[in-house]
């Protein structure tokens, strides 16, 4: 009788244990599912935030364009795909049939946008590798920096397409104004990420036009056999940028370099051959800039004449 009771108690305990184990396992599974859903929710939330930001930029651009432009003649059908989205100020704006260009084709296809951005981000060190090293970015900071750069690129492309829809191009003042607003968003995002090193990174970006020419010394090493190190490139960039004029946004205008003033300082960080080579490179850059400025002024003159007719 005692043995029977013991067996029953053991059986009950085993059953209870089994139930308890099952419940714990189920609870663990639920917890894991909740965690997975929470991380998905966070990812979705981030996507929603990005999309909202993109929508805000596009809406602001449309509203701004709607206020600043006269309507273009044409039936709604002639105005193309964006007419359907028009309401409020943008409904009255000068929306034109969207031009079919590489940019419009890519931006209207999320798969192509994703492919472009994935590869763009995979190669981001080509632009910012020097900055990542100098400011000692952590791998996590580099990843966040990539996300910020990708969002900024998408906003810029949205802006450009919105301008095209209104018959404007990148030379227009409206584009500059809107691009500056976009730049502000990116800078605010970067400032949050970068903290103390933000001024260093801003200066890196603002002197990148100079750096582009200086790093050609590293390319010239293929034939000259005289390598240019990261430190040499950064120091030479600083010296040249200190002898350049800056634009209103703080960007160094490399074609304005005062070479006679920069040269003696460069001799302290570069070899005589490198200084001479860099002198020729900067001379070439100045010549190109002159040609471009001339082209731009002639184009503006031509446009003004056409408008006057």
């Amino acid at each position: 009788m005692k043995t029977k009771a013991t067996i029953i108690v053991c059986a009950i305990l085993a059953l209870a244990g089994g139930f308890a184990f099952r419940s714990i396992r189920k609870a663990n599974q639920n917890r894991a599912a909740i965690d997975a859903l929470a991380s998905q929710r966070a990812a979705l939330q981030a996507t929603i935030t990005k999309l909202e930001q993109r929508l805000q930029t596009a809406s602001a651009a449309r509203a701004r364009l709607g206020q600043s432009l006269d309507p273009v003649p044409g039936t709604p059908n002639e105005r193309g795909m964006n007419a359907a989205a028009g309401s409020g100020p943008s409904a009255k704006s000068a929306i034109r049939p969207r031009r079919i260009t590489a940019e419009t084709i890519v931006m209207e296809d999320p798969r192509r946008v994703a492919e472009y951005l994935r590869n763009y981000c995979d190669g981001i060190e080509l632009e910012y590798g020097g900055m990542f090293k100098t400011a000692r970015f952590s791998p996590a900071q580099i990843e966040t920096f990539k996300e910020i750069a990708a969002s900024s690129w998408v906003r810029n492309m949205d802006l450009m397409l919105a301008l095209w829809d209104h018959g404007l191009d990148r030379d227009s003042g409206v584009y500059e104004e809107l691009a500056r607003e976009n730049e502000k968003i990116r800078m605010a995002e970067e400032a949050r990420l970068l903290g103390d090193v933000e001024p260093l990174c801003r200066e890196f970006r603002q002197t990148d036009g100079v750096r582009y020419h200086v790093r050609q010394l590293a390319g010239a090493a293929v034939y000259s056999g005289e390598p240019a190190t990261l430190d040499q490139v950064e120091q030479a960039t600083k010296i040249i940028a200190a002898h350049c004029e800056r634009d209103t946004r703080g960007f160094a205008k490399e074609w304005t370099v005062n070479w006679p003033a920069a040269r003696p300082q460069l001799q302290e960080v570069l070899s005589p051959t490198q200084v001479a080579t860099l002198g020729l490179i900067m001379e070439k850059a100045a010549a190109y800039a002159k040609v471009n400025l001339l082209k731009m002024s002639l184009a503006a003159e031509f446009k003004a004449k056409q408008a006057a007719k």
Partner: protein
Amino acid sequence: MKAEHWPIFRGMGLTPEQAERACALRLESGQKTNYARFRALFGDAPTERLIEFDQIKDKAGATARALFASLYYIDEPVTAQQAKHLIEIIGRTWQKKPVPWYFWGQGCDWDRVLAEAASVLSPAQLQGVRAVAARTRAGEVFSAANKEAVAVAKP
């Protein structure tokens, strides 16, 4: 022209004055360099190097220069031997692209370069080449779209 050639002539062992003169000679003769005159002025070795440079300058040499200019941040300067090998590899993998380029690397098959240069470049330099390959793929997204846009525009 001078910015590109002067360091090359210096690398060939010419003095700064000779390099100046060589640049002037290049400018005078335009596309067709007078190698006999170059040889008479500067000797056999620089002339042979100039001929070699001319044979590859339009594609592989320019691509290698752009590559190492972009990878300055790696801080592992290219050696003469590495440069020579890489120019040969790039030359072999060069492909003609009928569409406009959105990135300088688009003339080259970087996957092949990566495979063939694995024994020539350091791991950090190879990582840099991978970045170039990625940017090339990004450029190709736009090149393909451009091709479609041109096809649509044609009546």
